């Protein structure tokens, strides 16, 4: 199907700034879904609040645009109610790991089947460039005019520690890898996390003097490397890209079904008096 059949054309041009990486994530997600041959009715996208979360308005799937930080909680309810849906949850770095940090680690721990996409621009884009838990030490933000003293999370390490059974990272520069990883994440039967480094030229870029959107993407090219590469051994500061974890674990909805079966069995043999 052509790209235009997956989007709500009436809302375009979209509201994202020129060069915003979130548009590239949208682009790649559409390609991934097209390659998987999924029908639009099989997909539900659940998002919170943020520039990133606006993505749910642009795709022609079932969509829920919910509240800041709580997309995974809504998605959990939806998935338990309709487990046959492919649930995709795109989130901003603030949405997922500041206000939504607790929902994030517990969804990962439960291993509920859904695809969490963290569109990491290292800033609160929507509200004007405040620092997020992913901005990192020494970065500039409207709320850190003399530079940030907070250290950042490593999304991959955090996700693995929390129990996510599929964990990957790539960038908006590496579009072929992005499309491939999104496909794998959607197919994975468990909680998948895909961190996408996504440029915000308007706030993170401007505050940190990183140049144009294309300059920021060139930075992703230069500062990242495939997992376990020789370059990484020589320069440990490089950020690794690829699939870090992919493992099988009991999935939450399937386990829940077993509990229902068990409970039904018991109520037949021992009726409640």
């Amino acid at each position, binding site marked *: 199907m052509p790209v*235009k059949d997956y989007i709500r054309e009436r809302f375009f041009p979209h509201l994202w700034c020129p060069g915003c990486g979130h548009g*590239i994530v949208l682009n790649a997600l559409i390609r991934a879904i097209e390659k998987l041959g999924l029908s639009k009715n099989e997909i539900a996208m659940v998002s919170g609040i943020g520039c990133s979360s606006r993505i749910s308005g642009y795709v022609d799937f079932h969509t829920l645009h919910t509240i800041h930080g709580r997309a995974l909680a809504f998605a959990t309810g939806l998935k338990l109610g309709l487990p046959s849906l492919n649930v995709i949850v795109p989130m901003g770095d603030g949405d997922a790991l500041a206000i939504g940090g607790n929902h994030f680690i517990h969804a990962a721990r439960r291993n509920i089947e859904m695809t969490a996409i963290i569109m990491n621009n290292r800033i609160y884009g929507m509200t004007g460039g405040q620092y997020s838990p992913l901005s990192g030490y020494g970065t500039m933000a409207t709320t850190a005019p003399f530079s940030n003293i907070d250290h950042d999370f490593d999304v991959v390490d955090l996700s693995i520690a929390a129990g996510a059974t599929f964990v990957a990272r790539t960038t908006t520069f590496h579009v072929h890898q992005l499309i491939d990883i999104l496909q794998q994440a959607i197919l994975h039967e468990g909680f998948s996390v895909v961190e996408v480094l996504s440029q915000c030229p308007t706030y993170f870029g401007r505050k940190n003097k990183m140049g144009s959107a294309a300059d920021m993407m060139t930075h992703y090219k230069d500062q990242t490397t495939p997992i376990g590469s020789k370059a990484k051994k020589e320069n440990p500061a490089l950020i690794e890209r690829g699939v870090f974890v992919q493992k099988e674990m009991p999935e939450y909805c399937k386990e829940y079904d077993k509990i229902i079966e068990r409970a039904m069995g018991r109520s037949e043999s021992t009726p409640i008096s």
Partner: protein
Amino acid sequence: MAKPKLKEHVINLDWCKGCGICIAFCPKSVLELDEKEKVVVARAKDCICCQLCELRCPDLAIKVEME
């Protein structure tokens, strides 16, 4: 496999925001911005149909059609 041959670049001028991403990363320097800050095809004959411009466009504004 035969080399893909370009038919045309389909550009949606209402959606293109002139961010320059497609231009910066085109391996053959096929694209440019015009005076209205919209993308234009300056050297169509050099295009190798890699589709990187299409895949990296944040605005879904450029499509590479092949024969």
